[in-house]
């Protein structure tokens, strides 16, 4: 037993970082893109690509929130209705109370974080299983959205710049050929930021550690409950961003929307290679997962596939994409 530490070869390091796996996960996406480009000339237009990205923005942001929670080994069923709830809160602040835009933004994100904090507390301190705690939250928030909005959509007519949040294009102003909506920009910036948080900060480290072996982390003297609550709160804040995106895109807070969105978000996460058992996952994978889902739906619509068959094909491709990913990973080691 010699004391030399084997130097990690670049290839090994690539493997270890999971980058290889992530690169491979692109494959299913690329295959889909190529297929649809050949199948329909209308698919590969700038405007349609932007439409796909825009359709990804809300689900993508929710999926980022879900990724955080899933890496800890939990699950968050409330992302969809929390999004709605924060949208309604923003509507209340901006339209009912007539406050200025920044307050609406703060209120949505703050309320999201607060609700996440509650879920996190139920889970970490009261030891309620995440599935139940967030299922309860999902129902509570669904009801509260209807209550505080008076079961009616809230329109943002007093805040004319509101739709800009998601549909305006900062990028387009700089590069007119690339009218990337702000919603998509926000999605990408958020993905970069949360990726950074996961890989470079203490919070990220504990996110993975909790999902890997919570008891071991606790035995190491870490305040696991506190960190878990923080992660749920962060995820909640991200749902608040999704609430802003969807309500600014629809120029209204739709109180009945949101149910079922949690499954799409979780599906994107899992297609992206994050394990529901916790401990491993990546934001890049999640974004790819979300893109696979929107490309698929958009492509099938463009090909005018009958709606009932769209559903069948989506189901098949989700299974196939994950299976292909598994095979590749198994071969890779």
């Amino acid at each position: 037993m010699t004391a030399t530490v084997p130097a990690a070869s670049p290839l090994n390091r690539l493997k270890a970082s999971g980058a290889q796996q992530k690169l491979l996960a692109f494959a299913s996406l690329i295959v889909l893109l190529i297929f649809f480009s050949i199948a329909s000339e209308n698919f590969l237009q700038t405007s349609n690509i932007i439409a796909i990205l825009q359709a990804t923005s809300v689900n993508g942001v929710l999926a980022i929130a879900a990724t955080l929670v899933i890496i800890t080994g939990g699950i968050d069923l409330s992302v969809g209705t929390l999004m709605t709830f924060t949208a309604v809160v923003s509507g209340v602040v901006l339209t009912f109370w007539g406050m200025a835009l920044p307050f609406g933004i703060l209120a949505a994100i703050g309320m999201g974080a607060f609700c996440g904090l509650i879920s996190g507390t139920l889970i970490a301190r009261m030891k309620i299983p995440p599935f139940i705690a967030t299922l309860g939250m999902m129902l509570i928030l669904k009801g509260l959205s209807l209550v505080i909005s008076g079961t009616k959509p809230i329109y943002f007519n007093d805040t004319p710049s509101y739709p800009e949040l998601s549909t305006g294009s900062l990028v387009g102003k700089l590069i007119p050929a690339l009218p990337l909506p702000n919603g998509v920009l926000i999605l990408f910036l958020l993905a970069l930021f949360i990726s950074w948080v996961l890989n470079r900060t203490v919070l990220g480290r504990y996110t993975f550690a909790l999902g890997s072996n919570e008891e071991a982390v606790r035995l190491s003297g870490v305040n696991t409950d506190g960190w878990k609550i923080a992660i749920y709160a962060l995820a909640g804040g991200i749902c608040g961003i999704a609430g802003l995106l969807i309500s600014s895109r629809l120029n209204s807070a739709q109180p009945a929307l949101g149910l079922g969105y949690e499954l799409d978000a979780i599906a994107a996460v899992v297609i992206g290679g994050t394990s529901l058992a916790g401990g491993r996952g990546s934001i890049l994978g999640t974004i790819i997962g979300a893109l696979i889902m929107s490309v698929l739906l958009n492509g099938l619509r463009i090909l005018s596939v009958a709606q009932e068959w769209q559903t069948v094909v989506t189901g098949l491709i989700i299974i196939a994409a994950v299976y292909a990913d598994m095979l590749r990973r198994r071969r890779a080691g």
Partner: protein
Amino acid sequence: QDKIYIPMISKGFQHQFWQAVKAGADKAAAELGVEVTFEGPDTEAQVDRQIDMLSAALAKKPAAIGFAALDSQAAIPLLKQAQEAGIPVIAFDSGVDSDIPAATASTDNLAAAALAADKMAELIGGAGKVALVVHDQTSRTGIDRRDGFVNQIAAKYPDIEIVDIQYGAGDQLQSTEIAKAILTAHPDLKGMFGANEGSAIGVLNAKKESGRSDLIVIGYDSGAAQKAAIIEGSMNGAITQNPVGIGYETVKAAVAASKGEAVEKNIDTGFFYYDKTNIDAPEIAAVLYD
């Protein structure tokens, strides 16, 4: 090859009502030699899904678009986009807050539900307790049918009390359970209004399962089960719109608009009350579907 292509973005897809609209659209498509596709989100809450569908439809550079807006404002930016691209839009089922649509083919749900209220009042003798099972608390059709009924009762029938309004998502099973609970809570209930096909069938099931054969039931839309119940007498009557007509007129107007022809701005496709006595009348039979 270059058939005129018209996508129809509807509010739903799986419900029989929307299938009937689709049937009308397909009929017009066949007659006029154009190609029509038809899709809609799973529930009437999914406003953003509908926007995505609309946006995919626009990418296909269609000759015209049929659009049944889930929210009267949310789609306006995309509709503007359509306008800029020179794609005429025909609104159907309900309108949008904009003058972009070249035409609107719809039913007045408020008036139709008011007619249901009148019939209900007549059948229960102008006094007593009634309840509503509605399919949706937030969608336009749900709100209009509820408010049309409730307002009419409030305005014209002071002796009728609306004791409960609950919502069953148009899911037959859920609506059944809701209606049963309402019947349990109000043993003296005289009548119930089911605001769409699923709700009406739910009310009907509840009536049967609770053995309340005296309950007056008024439904909405048609469908095989509802028609059978009316013939057999367990349902007293129902409001029907003309979904086939809505689909048909929408496509017709879309084709005309795509050719630059003038179209009528408001196409009222009408509604009817039908019961055992008139269900076989030709003008009723024409608008009912299975």
